[in-house]
């Protein structure tokens, strides 16, 4: 991306991005940094956290990577405490961490259902709750949940993933209503098919088929999702809440 003049309106804010070691999370962490925020990116492993720290440093972004298991309440508490002590409590939260455990319904194991619900949906409850006190006190906050186009379209073999993402969008609207009076906005971004490790594993045939459904005729780039997240975190987006911003090359126009 070329060196453009970018508003530094997130200067002084601490942003927390889960699942930031690669793909959309990584691009989002860098984008928020570019807008002036101090960024804490999380990964499940220490080596992933180290990679995030290096990536932020290389881009001249303040902050660091931290190891966090979003399915573990104790881990969430430890990391939030560490951030508050070293920086200040995050007022921007991007719930991006997610997994897929695809299977046709008739073959889907309970474990595959539960794992996806825990990591993709319950984590959003857990992380949001952990960040809310500081946001209500500050009378300013941004929660941005990374959903998916399949939350509204549905997708074969992804009943668990689609249910979790649709749940996330309902959560987004409820929380937006609860927290509006505290000047906290809660939104979702629903990416279409983006060139990340998550879509890389799909068979070539399926990828070709997918691209045919996209009016713009290509997969999206992680940076194109990050730009939407950056906008929702910014001051000019202050009047947008409870919304799901679709970034999908036109594959799911409504």
């Amino acid at each position, binding site marked *: 991306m070329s060196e453009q003049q970018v508003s530094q309106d997130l200067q002084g804010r601490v942003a927390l991005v889960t699942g930031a070691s690669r793909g959309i999370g990584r691009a989002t962490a860098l984008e928020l940094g570019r807008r002036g925020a101090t960024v804490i990116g999380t990964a499940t492993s220490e080596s992933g956290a180290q990679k995030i720290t290096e990536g932020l440093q290389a881009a001249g972004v303040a902050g660091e990577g931290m190891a966090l298991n979003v399915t573990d309440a104790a881990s969430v508490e430890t990391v939030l405490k560490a951030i508050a002590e070293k920086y200040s409590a995050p007022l921007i939260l991007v719930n991006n961490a997610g997994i897929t455990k695809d299977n046709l319904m008739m073959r889907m194991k309970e474990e595959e259902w539960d794992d996806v619900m825990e990591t993709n949906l319950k984590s959003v409850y857990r992380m949001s709750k952990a960040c809310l*006190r500081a946001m*209500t006190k500050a009378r300013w906050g941004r929660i941005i949940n990374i959903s998916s186009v399949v939350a509204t379209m549905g997708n074969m073999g992804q009943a668990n993933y689609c249910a979790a993402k649709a749940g996330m969008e309902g959560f987004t609207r409820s929380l937006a209503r*609860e*927290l509006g*009076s*505290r000047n906290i906005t809660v939104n979702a971004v629903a990416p279409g098919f983006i060139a990340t490790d998550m879509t890389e594993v799909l068979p070539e045939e399926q990828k070709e088929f997918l691209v045919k459904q996209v009016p713009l005729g290509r997969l999206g780039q992680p940076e194109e999702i990050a730009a939407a997240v950056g906008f929702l975190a910014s001051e000019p987006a202050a009047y947008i809440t409870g919304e799901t911003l679709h970034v999908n090359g036109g594959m799911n126009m409504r």
Partner: protein
Amino acid sequence: MSTIEERVKKIVAEQLGVKEEEIQNSSSFVEDLGADSLDTVELVMALEEEFETEIPDEEAEKITTVQEAVDYVNAHQ
């Protein structure tokens, strides 16, 4: 050292954006001081922080006036 009553009133004033002198012991957070449901939750959390205690939901529901908050803190010190 402020009394518990003074500390409670200070928190109520900060949290609900009212003047301390307007707060009576008998003041109801919702009816007299204009608190909404989120305000009352925040108020309880602020009391928990100030007095380093945990107030269970079923107890928190019963704290609707300044006096009830003072009584609760006194009973759980």
